[in-house]
């Protein structure tokens, strides 16, 4: 058992006001593996990802990403995780390139990489149009570029292909899919597809981990949603 796990959560707790959004969640994700998180809405999936992204601090238990403890060493983690969720985190009045340049400056990434990525997702020609003029699928592609701009070791994907047509969803694959080779945490509502790409599974309901590990059956996942 060589390497330390990329992500290690032990009894993680996070509250939101009076509610407990994450109730002593534990899971371990080896480097390069894909963790798929299932659960109905409000189960805490997005909260979990935001904690891993260092946007929220853990309020109990322990959390380690790439060997660094949260929240104490959160600043060491920041440059190594990439978040892609519902919100593309792009300003609508700026062009795709201008948005990506903003993030590139923040992360200290050379601008050449922006052109590379836009090329990869097929938007090189539309990079100088304001984001508000792009379709939802295109916006999400630009957002994916933003998420991997700084070549993070860990990818956090919160239903990245929701509301996308299959072609657009496929366009994201090379960047954030299994092929990228990175450690990934993906939320999913599709038991069959989710299980197909999972190395480790986590099933949340009401903030609690009701399923975890590998070798989880599809019917067990469906139970979560009942």
């Amino acid at each position, binding site marked *: 058992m060589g390497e330390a796990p990329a992500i290690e959560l032990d009894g993680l707790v996070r*509250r*939101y*006001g*009076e509610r407990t959004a994450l109730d002593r969640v534990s899971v371990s994700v080896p480097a390069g593996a894909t963790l798929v998180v299932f659960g109905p809405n409000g189960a805490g999936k997005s909260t979990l990802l935001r904690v891993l992204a260092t946007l929220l601090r853990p309020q109990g238990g322990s959390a380690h990403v790439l060997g660094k403890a949260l929240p104490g060493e959160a600043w060491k983690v920041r440059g190594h995780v990439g978040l892609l969720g519902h919100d593309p985190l792009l300003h609508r009045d700026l062009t795709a390139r201008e948005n990506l340049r903003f993030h590139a400056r923040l992360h200290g990434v050379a601008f050449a990489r922006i052109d590379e990525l836009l090329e990869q997702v097929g938007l090189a020609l539309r990079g100088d149009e304001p984001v508000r003029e792009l379709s939802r699928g295109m916006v999400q592609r630009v957002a994916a570029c933003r998420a991997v701009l700084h070549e993070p070791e860990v990818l956090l994907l919160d239903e990245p292909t929701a509301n996308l047509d299959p072609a657009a969803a496929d366009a994201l694959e090379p960047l954030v899919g299994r092929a990228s080779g990175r450690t990934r945490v993906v939320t999913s509502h599709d038991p069959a597809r989710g299980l197909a790409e999972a190395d480790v599974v986590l099933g949340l309901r009401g903030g609690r981990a009701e399923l975890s590990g590998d070798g989880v059956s599809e019917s067990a996942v469906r139970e979560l949603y009942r």
Partner: protein
Amino acid sequence: MYGTRLRALSIATLVTLTGGFALAAFYAPEDADQGFMQKILYLHVPLAIAALCGFIFAGICAIQHLRTNEFRWDLRSYVAIHVSLIFGAAVLITGSIWARASWGHWWVWDEPTLVSFLIVFLLYATYQPLRFSIEDRDKQSRYASVFAITAGAFVPLNFLAVRLAQSYTHPRVFATANGGLEPHMKVAFYVCLLGMALLYVTLWKYEMAAKNTRMQLKALRRRLGGDIVAPPRRSAQPTMESA
């Protein structure tokens, strides 16, 4: 914890205040110009000093809250501002009465303490609306502390600026309180000041004790009654997180 020594404190407050007022009314001589009404300043100025110290204390509690992230500092800050606001309202009212008695108007711009107080009062009056309008409890407490620190830093600056700005008219009527006052006036003044300080501490402790008790009661109810307790409404008050 806050209920201990409350009775002794209350008695001490009552005694000191009554003594102070008696001294002010009968022992201290009347002011040559303003007559008996000048004596309301024995009420007005100690109230003001106590309120201001309260605001600064709230700022210090807020600093502690941000440093330690412990809920009790937030509660202390909240209660301190609350009591200071009540005192502040009293300052404005007594100041207005005095202005009416001395100059015939219900408000004057010549007394820097009064004017500064109005500004400070207007600022702190936004504390509760600010808290109420932020729903997430942790954020609410944190932002409230930031406000209390900013406002606390503001108070001395405000008094400095207003004092400097008003230097053209009246010599400060009650600046004489700490210099050039007759010894009888001084005694009365200091006793009143002590009384007001005690009153502040007593009220603060009372409110802290009341809030703590209510929260413990709620927590007990919740533990006994399971989830039958009504979901908490949005509120401006700091509350403990359920264990």
